[in-house]
C-alpha cells in the first residue's frame, strides 16, 4: 500500500539525514590515528588535542565573537527599519524592503567576492571589521523577516492605546512594542547568530592565519589532510547546533522553524 512505501522512504530519508552527523560523532572518538568509522576504540584524545591547540580555541572565539557582534548590530539595525516599513507608507517602501531582504536569496559567493573587491578598494580587508560588515549584511534579513509579521494591525492598536493613555513614542516602544515583538527578535536573532557562525563563503575572503573562523579553518584543513581532529571539531558544532534547536523548541516552539534557511 502507498502508506507503507511512504513510510519506507521517510525512514530512509531520516536515516540519510542523521548519517553524516552520526558518522562524525562516532569518528571523533576513534583511537586510531586516521579517520575511521565505525571507530576502533573509544577515546576523547582528539577533543583533548583540539583544546590544546590555541589556533582552534582562537578560531572558536573569533567565530563566536563575530556572530555575537554581527547579531547585535543586525538587531539594532533591523528593529527600527521594521518599525518604519511596517507602519508608515512612504514612496519606495517596497523597494527598500526588498533590498534589505535580498541577501536572503542572493548567492553568498557573489556577495563575498563583491565585498572582497570593494574592500580592497577602501582598505577594509582581512580584518575583524571586514568580516563583520559582510556578516551583518547577510544576517540582518533574518531578524527583519522575523519581526515584520509581528508589527501588524493588532500591534498598531496597542500602540495607539498606549499613546491615548499618555505615553510618548519612546515609552510606547519600550513598554508596549518591544515586549510584543520579543519572540520575533529572539527567533530572528537565533537564526542570524547561527547563520553567521556557520558561514564559509563570506568569511573565507577575509580570514588570515591569525584571524579565522572555525568553518574556514576546517575548510582549509580538509583540502590537505583529513584526520580525526576535524571530526572532533565538527562534532562540537553538531552538538552545539542540536542544543540550539532544542533550546529554540523549548522556548519558542518548533513552528518558528518553518522559516527558511
Amino acid at each position, binding site marked *: 500500500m502507498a502508506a507503507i512505501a511512504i513510510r519506507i522512504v521517510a525512514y530512509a530519508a531520516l536515516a*540519510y539525514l542523521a548519517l*553524516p552527523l552520526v558518522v562524525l560523532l562516532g*569518528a571523533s572518538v576513534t583511537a586510531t590515528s586516521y579517520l575511521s568509522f565505525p571507530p576502533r576504540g573509544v577515546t576523547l584524545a582528539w577533543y583533548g588535542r583540539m583544546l590544546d591547540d590555541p589556533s582552534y580555541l582562537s578560531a572558536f572565539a573569533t567565530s563566536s565573537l563575530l556572530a555575537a557582534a554581527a547579531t547585535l548590530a543586525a538587531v539594532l539595525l533591523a528593529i527600527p527599519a521594521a518599525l518604519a516599513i511596517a507602519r508608515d507608507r512612504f514612496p519606495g517602501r517596497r523597494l527598500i524592503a526588498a533590498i534589505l531582504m535580498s541577501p536572503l*536569496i542572493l548567492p553568498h*559567493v*557573489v556577495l563575498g*567576492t*563583491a565585498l572582497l573587491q570593494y574592500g580592497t578598494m577602501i582598505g577594509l580587508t582581512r580584518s575583524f571589521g571586514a568580516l563583520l560588515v559582510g556578516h551583518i549584511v547577510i544576517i540582518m534579513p533574518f531578524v527583519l523577516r522575523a519581526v515584520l509579521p509581528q508589527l501588524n494591525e493588532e500591534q498598531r492598536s496597542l500602540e495607539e492605546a498606549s499613546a491615548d493613555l499618555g505615553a510618548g513614542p519612546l515609552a510606547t516602544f519600550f513598554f508596549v512594542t518591544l515586549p510584543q515583538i520579543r519572540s520575533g527578535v529572539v527567533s530572528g536573532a537565533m537564526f542570524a547568530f547561527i547563520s553567521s557562525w556557520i558561514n564559509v563563503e563570506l568569511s573565507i575572503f577575509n580570514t588570515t592565519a591569525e584571524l579565522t573562523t572555525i568553518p574556514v579553518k576546517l575548510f582549509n584543513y580538509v583540502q590537505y589532510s583529513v584526520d580525526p581532529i576535524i571530526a572532533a571539531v565538527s562534532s562540537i558544532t553538531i552538538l552545539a547546533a542540536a542544543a540550539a534547536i532544542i533550546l529554540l523548541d523549548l522556548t519558542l516552539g518548533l513552528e518558528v522553524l518553518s522559516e527558511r534557511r
Partner: protein
Amino acid sequence: MRAPLRKILLLLGAAVLFFAAFFLAPMLVVAIASVTDADGNVSFASYARILLDRYHWDVLWTTFRIGALTTAATMLIGYPLAWYLVRIVRFAHWRRACIIMLVVPLFTSNIVRSFGWMVLLGRNGLVNDALVGAGLIERPLRFLGTELGIEIGLVYILLPFMVLSIGNALAKVDPLLEQASADLGASPSATFRTITFPLSLPGLMAGTVMVFMLAVSAYVTPALLSGGRITVFSMLIFQQYGSLFDFHYGGALSITMLVLTLALIALAARIGEARGI
C-alpha cells in the same frame, strides 16, 4: 497616511546607509568591473568570454545538470517525507524529534556536512563498505570527484528546505476539503490527485525554485566533493577572486549568476501569480 519624513529617515537611516555602503556599493563595483577592462575602458570582453568560451558553457551545463538532478531528487524524497511528517505521524513527540533531525543539519556548517560525506563516500568509507559487504559490488566505487557524489552531498544539504516548504503547504490544506471530496464520491487516491496534491503545489514549487537556486550557486559542497575533477559555476567565480585576481572576468561571472538568480525568482513569482495564490 504620510508620516513625518524625519521620523522615517531616523528609523530607516542606519539600515539603509549600512546597506548602501556595504551591499549596494560592492555590487555596483562588481557590475562596473564586469564592463571594464584592465585599462579602465568600457569593454564587454568579459561577457563575450563567458558567451563564447566552450569551457564555460561546459561548466554552466554541468552546474545546471547537477542542479536539476539535485532538485529532482529532493522533490522525490522530500514529498514523501513531508507527507509522513504531516499526515502519517500521530505521536507528537516523534514528530518533534523528526523535525529536530531535519533542522539540526541546517544549523551545522556546510563544511561539516560536506566533510561528513567525504568520509562516507571515500574508497574505504561506509557506503562502499556496505555495498561491498552486501555483495552488490566487487570493488569500491568512486563517489568523490563524480557528479553523483556532489549530488548526494547537495541533496543532503537542501532536503530540509524542500521538506519544510512542502510540509507547510500540506499542513494548510483544509481537511474539510478532502472530506467534501470523499463525500462526493472520490476514492482516497482520487482525492489526493484532484484536491490534496494541487493544493500542495505552491509549497512544492516554492521549494523547487529555492532548492534549484541554492544548488546552482553552491560553493562549499561541490568544492569539497569534486576532488578537483569537476568545476561548477561558483568555483569558477571563486577562482577569479581567490587565485587569479581577474576582477573583470570574475565580475562578469558574478553578474551572470546574479541575473540567473533574479530570473528564477521572477519566474517563481509569475507562476505563483498565475495560479492565483
